[in-house]
């Protein structure tokens, strides 16, 4: 895989890449006006559509979202600047915010841990097979290609009172309440459905990485007397750790944003047992029309995602091994 090149090509430098300069953000004063080089003109034309889209549907919204988070805009009234009031209200006045934060973190931690454990187990299991790998990969991958809402609606039917889940729970004599009606169990149902719907992506990715581990490493270890367990922990796991890292980061980013399952299955309930940040932002913005407050919530989510990603990049030094 080619590395993302951070080189800034010097003007007039020939094709020789080895001579390129090291990354450098050019902050030189504007040069005297000259006609742009034809290549630059072509580049600008080629980039125009994506740049326009980027500005209108990315850059402007990001800035607008930040600006909105400092206003009290409720869609009908004219917005007025309220400083940090939304953020202060979040952390001090709004009793629901800590519930939402706790739900979000609870979901993210449990879901992330289960996703990595389950996907790694299934990936190792599949890669140990001689035949039929593709069939199992497709089966576990199928839910990731189906609309989350459709999956959630099917699970909603499974969890409906006196439905299939209740029948099984009763038959097994487990004495559990209906998951979606119980404030302690509703979140477990959401975790289960999200896991079912998304675990396949990591299964396939980890399986691919495991299959790429060079056979002769494992053979050499076997000759040295390593058993299957040692070969897994000492050789295969370290070799696929960059892929596990990538999967963990991506899964963490998406888990903090969970929305579809909650909208379709619980609408944040019962009570506020499954109200996560993603759902709270939608609710505050599009049901209560508190756009300013919802934007502040969205920035809290963004900061959480950034913090978690930075933390993971920081921790990767401890457990991720790179060949080169």
């Amino acid at each position, binding site marked *: *895989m080619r590395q*993302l090149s*951070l080189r800034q*090509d010097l003007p007039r430098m020939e094709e020789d890449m080895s001579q390129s300069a090291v990354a450098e953000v050019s902050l030189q004063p504007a040069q005297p006006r000259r006609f742009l080089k034809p*290549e*630059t003109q072509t*580049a*600008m034309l*080629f*980039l125009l*559509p*994506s*740049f326009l*889209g*980027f500005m209108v*549907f990315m850059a402007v*919204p*990001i800035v*607008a*979202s930040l600006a909105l988070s400092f206003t009290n805009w409720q869609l009908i009234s004219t917005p007025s600047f309220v400083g940090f009031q939304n953020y202060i209200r979040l952390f001090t006045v709004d009793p629901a915010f800590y519930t939402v934060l706790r739900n979000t973190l609870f979901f993210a931690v449990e879901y992330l841990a289960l996703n990595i454990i389950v996907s790694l187990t*299934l990936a190792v*299991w599949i890669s*140990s097979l001689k035949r039929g790998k593709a069939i199992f*990969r*497709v*089966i576990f*991958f*199928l*839910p990731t*290609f*189906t*609309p*989350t*809402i459709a*999956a959630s*609606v*099917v699970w909603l*039917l499974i969890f409906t009172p006196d*439905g*299939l889940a209740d029948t099984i729970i009763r038959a097994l004599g487990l004495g559990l309440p209906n998951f979606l009606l119980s404030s302690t169990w509703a979140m477990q149902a959401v975790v289960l459905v999200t896991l*079912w719907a998304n675990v396949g*992506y990591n299964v*396939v990715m980890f399986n*691919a990485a495991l299959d790429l581990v060079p056979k002769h490493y494992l053979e050499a270890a076997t000759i040295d007397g390593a058993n299957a367990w040692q070969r897994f922990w000492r050789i295969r796991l370290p070799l696929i750790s*960059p892929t596990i890292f*990538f999967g963990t980061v991506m899964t963490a980013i998406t888990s903090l*944003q969970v*929305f*579809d399952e909650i*909208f*379709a299955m619980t609408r944040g309930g019962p009570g506020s047992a499954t109200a996560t940040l993603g759902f709270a*932002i*939608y609710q505050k*913005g599009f049901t209560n029309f508190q*756009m300013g407050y*919802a*934007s502040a919530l*969205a920035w809290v*989510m963004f900061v959480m995602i950034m913090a978690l990603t930075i933390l993971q990049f920081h921790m990767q030094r401890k457990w991720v091994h*790179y060949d080169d």
Partner: protein
Amino acid sequence: MTIDPASRHPHSVSQHRHRILRRVGTVVSYAGLSLIALLFLFPFFWMVSNAVRSNAEVMAVPVRIFPEEYHWGTFVEALVSLPFGIFVLNSFVVACGVTAIVIAVSCLSAYAFARLKFPGREGLLLTYLSTLMIPQVMLVIPLFLIVSKLGWINTYHGMILPVAFSSFGTFLLRQFILGIPKDLDEAAMMDGASRLRILVTVIVPLAMPAIGLLSLFTFIAQWKSFLWPLIATSGVEKATLPLGLTLFQTQQGTAWNYIMAGATISMLPGVVLAIVLQRVIYKGITVSSGFGGR
């Protein structure tokens, strides 16, 4: 030389036992994984199995695994009498529209980033890339304001344009184009071809594997998409399939068989694509996981 049976026999017995153990292990391994796979597939079965029941039977209290009677007509009724047919059309228009724009825009920008030199190239590329970390809900509120100010609520372009400019495609295609030999561009340039012509006649055909993968992932992502269609539309007229499923969940909360039929219809393209293109997807995921450092 005499063969001492006592010295050979135990050895072959242990080898034999070893082989049997290994075979038993293989059988257990396949059986266990197959069981998990069946549990994994069960919701699909439950969906179809309930789509073909009468609604009374869906709600009947001792739950039956297989339907008492098969009402295959539910699928047609869901498509015709409930507007699931319109939802299918809307989903297709939006998913295809986004995919077409993503491919066109990404090809142009990826070529510029991979082949053309211009001041500020790396900085712009990094800026594009950094947007991949922005959570969707953060953009949704201002995008709703922009789209409603433009009067684009409940229009196809309002549903398509705001989500058609992800920089993921630019990055994916750029990585692929970097791997295409530059000599090919130069040869075409000698023949007097313009950059656009080179992109269309030389690069695009060679980048087809990456473009195909990007189309597939974009189409499926849009087909699955829920939050933006939910916000950019009101009512049933422009609703996409996932949206339609939740609309009927509240408005006609009891029509579970129709909802299951709708869910089945909404899952079909993904299931078919996942099975038919499993090799391509597997390769694509292997490649994209390469961003992780492999």
